[in-house]
């Protein structure tokens, strides 16, 4: 397939492997921020291609994993309302809330539907005007513009039974927060598709302020190895900066139209991240101009007190401090068939990727 096969070429992979080995003399820890990268790294067995002095750790870029239990609990509470249809990306259905999941609510009769796009949710709202359709807006800058477009389109087409419950977040405050917290990272493999939207410019503060380089990477083995090589070269030369490996889709400015949609509909607010706690200006709330589409404003529900699972170390894994295999429940009490924490549910979660590809 075009733009995929070339980047899986075995000869190129071997060549890069040799180049990394020659270039790298120091002990380094590189963090792949994005859950999509975690998945690709495990799937293609990238760690086994790297010399022992290069360690890869997963970061906080799995949207489902960082989402709070109270958000799930709120969605669960809304699913119990009369005439409400909850629409959501698939991963979220099985994520445990404090006492329930959306899947469980569905089995008990709630109308919870999996959609591939916010546009599908909008279509449902259009076709069923007597129902209130709530779309669960989660994810970073890659999905936030889509939710914004959903709201803009609803307004334009006067669909007033469509709502978004936003837990959208922006990525780079979490990358800064990890370093501030003292997590030892020598370089970031920066998210590919978040950067398509934001552009490389949003990372400039990270090398400037913390001396940690960021290389925006694609998702194929050649992409990832090349990004590792670029980071290794930066580190060896003591020249940390923002570089783009994934140049075929990422540029410095990003997708301005998508950014405008996001700015039109959302305002920055403080937000809670699993593992990191509350980070200032890291979340996207729906601005007052569009409050009639904001599920949080429009549906007053009683949300149960949050209960976290004892024993789940997702928070530490999302900070790169522990590996999934360090968790006592990994592979025993917690599996992809029976997940205890969000990191095992989501395809972009580190526990899920380790479990799936370690066999």
């Amino acid at each position: 397939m075009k733009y995929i096969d070339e980047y899986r070429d075995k000869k190129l992979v071997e060549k890069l492997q040799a180049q990394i080995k020659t270039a790298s003399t120091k002990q380094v820890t590189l963090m792949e921020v994005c859950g999509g990268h975690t998945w690709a790294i495990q799937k293609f067995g990238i760690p086994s291609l790297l010399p022992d002095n290069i360690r890869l750790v997963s970061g906080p870029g799995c949207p489902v994993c960082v989402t709070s239990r109270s958000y799930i609990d709120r969605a669960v509470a809304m699913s119990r309302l009369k005439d409400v249809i909850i629409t959501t990306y698939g991963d979220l259905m099985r994520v445990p809330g404090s006492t329930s999941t959306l899947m469980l609510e569905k089995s008990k009769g709630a109308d919870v539907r999996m959609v591939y796009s916010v546009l599908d949710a909008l279509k449902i709202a259009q076709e069923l005007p007597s129902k209130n359709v709530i779309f669960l807006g989660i994810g970073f800058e890659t999905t936030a513009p889509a939710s914004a477009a959903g709201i803009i389109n609803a307004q334009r087409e006067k669909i007033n039974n469509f709502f978004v419950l936003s837990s959208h977040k922006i990525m780079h405050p979490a990358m800064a927060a990890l370093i501030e917290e003292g997590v030892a990272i020598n370089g970031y493999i920066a998210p590919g598709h978040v950067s398509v939207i934001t552009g490389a410019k949003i990372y400039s503060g990270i090398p400037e302020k913390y001396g940690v380089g960021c290389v925006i990477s694609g998702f194929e083995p050649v992409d990832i190895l090349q990004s590792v090589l670029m980071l290794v070269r930066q580190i060896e030369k003591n020249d940390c900066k923002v570089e783009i490996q994934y140049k075929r889709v990422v540029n410095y400015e990003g997708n301005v139209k998508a950014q405008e949609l996001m700015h039109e509909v959302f305002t920055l607010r403080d937000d809670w991240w699993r593992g990191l706690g509350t980070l200032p200006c890291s979340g996207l709330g729906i601005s007052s101009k569009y409050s009639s589409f904001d599920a949080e404003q429009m549906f007053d529900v009683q949300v149960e007190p949050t209960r976290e699972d004892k024993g789940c170390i997702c928070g530490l894994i999302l900070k790169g401090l522990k590996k999934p295999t360090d968790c006592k429940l990994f592979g025993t009490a917690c599996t992809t068939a029976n997940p205890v924490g969000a990191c095992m549910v989501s395809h972009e979660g580190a526990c899920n990727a380790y479990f799936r590809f370690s066999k």
Partner: protein
Amino acid sequence: MCLSIPSKVISINGDKAVVSVGGTTYEASLQMLDNVNVGDYILIHTGFAIQKISEEEALETLKVFEDFDELNNSIKPELDNI
């Protein structure tokens, strides 16, 4: 959720396109992307085209390795002479 796939534009109708990924076709919104033409490769994310894929850059990235090879080969004879 953050994974997107390279897809080929088959047809365009207003701000919607039909795209093909490995033989399967999907509809994608062009609301976030201007200047899309039939035959272009675009990145689709949750139903929206979010970027065109630059053929030039795609080839350039792959070419970097060839340059490295050339560089290696040009240095090697010198090393052999030492």
